[in-house]
């Protein structure tokens, strides 16, 4: 459905110098700075996939989305969406896609929401029959009817975001791009939006590309994620595989009766592994013994029995590494490595 190959985007800006003298100098100089926002990125996305496109701020997510919508032309490489080059045949491509930019709205600010939908119906040439059916469906998943007659500018952020998602879906697009669709929303609305995305995807096999900083969005929606950093792709694969490769650290939290007894206790030594593969921390205040270990090397029961031989335990908790931490870890590798 989406084929991006070796796409690069450079932003060329006139060079700026500090201060007033700098401003004058800037007027007469021809020097340019080039910012490479997207750097040789390739991926393919099939129909019906929900792909999480993640990366830190300024990584180049929005720029990639804009290239795929046809708003920006790539400096190099090619991009095809449903067989169409989005920049060359922008209007044709626009008929196939729906877009939500979380920080912007595509609705008519001064008009009642209902009018925005009527306008979009004409713009996308949606038949009366299709319009009725789609509206019924959108109403059911996004609950738009409560504020359907209110001017857009009076809507709350959550209502506006639901309305914007509805507007992007009115013409039943093949591909849906969502650029930070849950930013600033409370949990209830987030949940509503996620459910809507899932239902649309199930019902119409809509391809979804989603950028977000909310790990919850990813965990609930995406089967596949692509991570970019400083314009380069650094990971592309399933969520499970990612967790498998990077998320092998587990933490065992043990509440013990007498924490003093635990000082000097080293399960790493007893089990015969290196120190960094089984790190022990003591929390005297809460009488907690925290053991962080590599899931590939050690098993939790192994450690548990080692501890219980020496110390009396009152409570146990086992934690997997959070996805957020994994992602953070990958960013660190991405920027250090190469």
């Amino acid at each position, binding site marked *: 459905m989406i084929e991006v190959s070796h796409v690069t985007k450079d*932003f060329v800006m006139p060079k700026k110098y500090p201060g007033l003298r700098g401003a004058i100098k800037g007027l007469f100089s021809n020097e340019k700075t080039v910012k490479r926002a997207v750097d040789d990125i390739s991926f393919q996305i099939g129909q019906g996939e929900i792909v999480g496109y993640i990366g830190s701020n300024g990584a180049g997510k*929005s720029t990639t989305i*804009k290239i795929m*919508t*046809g*708003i*920006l*032309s790539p400096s190099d490489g090619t991009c095809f969406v449903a067989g169409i080059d989005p920049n060359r045949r*922008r*209007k*044709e491509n*626009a*008929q196939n*896609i729906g*877009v939500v*930019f979380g*920080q*912007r*709205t*595509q609705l*008519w600010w*001064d*008009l009642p929401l209902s*009018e925005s939908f*009527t*306008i979009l119906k*004409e*713009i*996308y*040439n949606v038949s009366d029959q299709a319009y009725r059916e789609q509206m019924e469906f959108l109403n059911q998943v996004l609950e738009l009817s409560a504020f359907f007659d209110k001017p857009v500018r009076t809507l709350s952020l959550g209502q506006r975001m639901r309305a914007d998602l509805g507007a992007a879906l009115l013409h039943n697009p093949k591909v849906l791009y969502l*650029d930070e669709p849950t930013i600033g929303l409370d949990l209830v609305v987030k949940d509503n939006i996620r459910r809507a995305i899932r239902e649309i995807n199930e019902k119409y096999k809509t391809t979804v590309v989603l950028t977000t900083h909310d790990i919850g969005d990813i965990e609930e929606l995406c089967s596949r994620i692509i991570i970019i950093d400083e314009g380069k792709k650094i990971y592309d694969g399933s969520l499970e595989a990612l967790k498998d490769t990077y998320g092998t650290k587990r933490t065992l939290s043990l509440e013990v009766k007498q924490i003093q007894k635990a000082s000097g206790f080293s399960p790493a030594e007893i089990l015969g592994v290196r120190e960094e593969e089984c790190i022990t921390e003591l929390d005297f205040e809460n009488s907690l013994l925290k053991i962080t270990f590599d899931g590939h090397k050690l098993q939790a029961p192994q450690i548990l029995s080692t501890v219980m031989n020496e110390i009396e335990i009152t409570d146990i908790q086992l934690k997997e590494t959070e996805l957020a931490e994994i992602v953070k870890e990958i960013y660190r590798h991405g920027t250090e490595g190469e």
Partner: protein
Amino acid sequence: MKRRIKAYLPFTINELKRQMAYKGAFYLFILVKMFGAFINYYLWMAIYGSTNQNTLGGLTQGEMVIYIFMAYLTGTIVTVSVSNWVSEDVVQGTVAMNLIKPIDYRMSLISRASGDMIYQFLVPSVFIWIGLEIYRAAVPGLPPFSAEKVLFYLVSTVLSFLIYVLFDFCFGMIAFFTTYIFGLMMVKQALIAFLTGQLIPISFFPEAVQRVFDFLPFSSMVYTPVMIYLGKYTGNKLFFMLLRQAAWVVLLYLFGSLIWRKVTKRLVILGG
């Protein structure tokens, strides 16, 4: 083609609705502008009063009265500031929101401007026009009402509207490079009032200057339809004038397409 027009119609209707919603501000605006027309009127009456010639710049005093108000009226109908909207869209970053839709940006602006034009025509202009027709009937020496002239005037005004809007679209493209074009807009407004003949009929300029104006689109924006209304152009000359307007429409359309292609190629829309 039918489908395309249907896609743009909502822009026209919306603008009409929006204008109606802001009536209050609009009437104040008319009042201010009318004030300007009246100052112009008294100025010219004083000039005609202080000379013993019957015609100045080819216009009798009666014709001048009609010229002043007709030029004012045509100016308000025709000069819909599309570049304002472009610059708003650039500043607020809503250009991107237009580009994700299967529509032509310029066509959507022209459709929106049409709504504005229709409104300005319906609300103040028709009444001023009726007033002028009464004046025409009451003052001796003026040519009588002619349905044919009115028809040609309307055709010419629609062409003027297209010329202005297409020109202003090109002007608005500057916004993509400098973001804030308000200063330039003021300059443009002053120049337009002068070059289109809204302030002084073009026939008052020296011959050489008039020749130069012939090669600019501005006189086609206001001066031409008003002169047609006054019955100054007839037969072949009328035909030529309308043809020249049509030529400007085509030329500015092509020029606009060219710039737009350039702009979208290097378009750098505000982040987000």
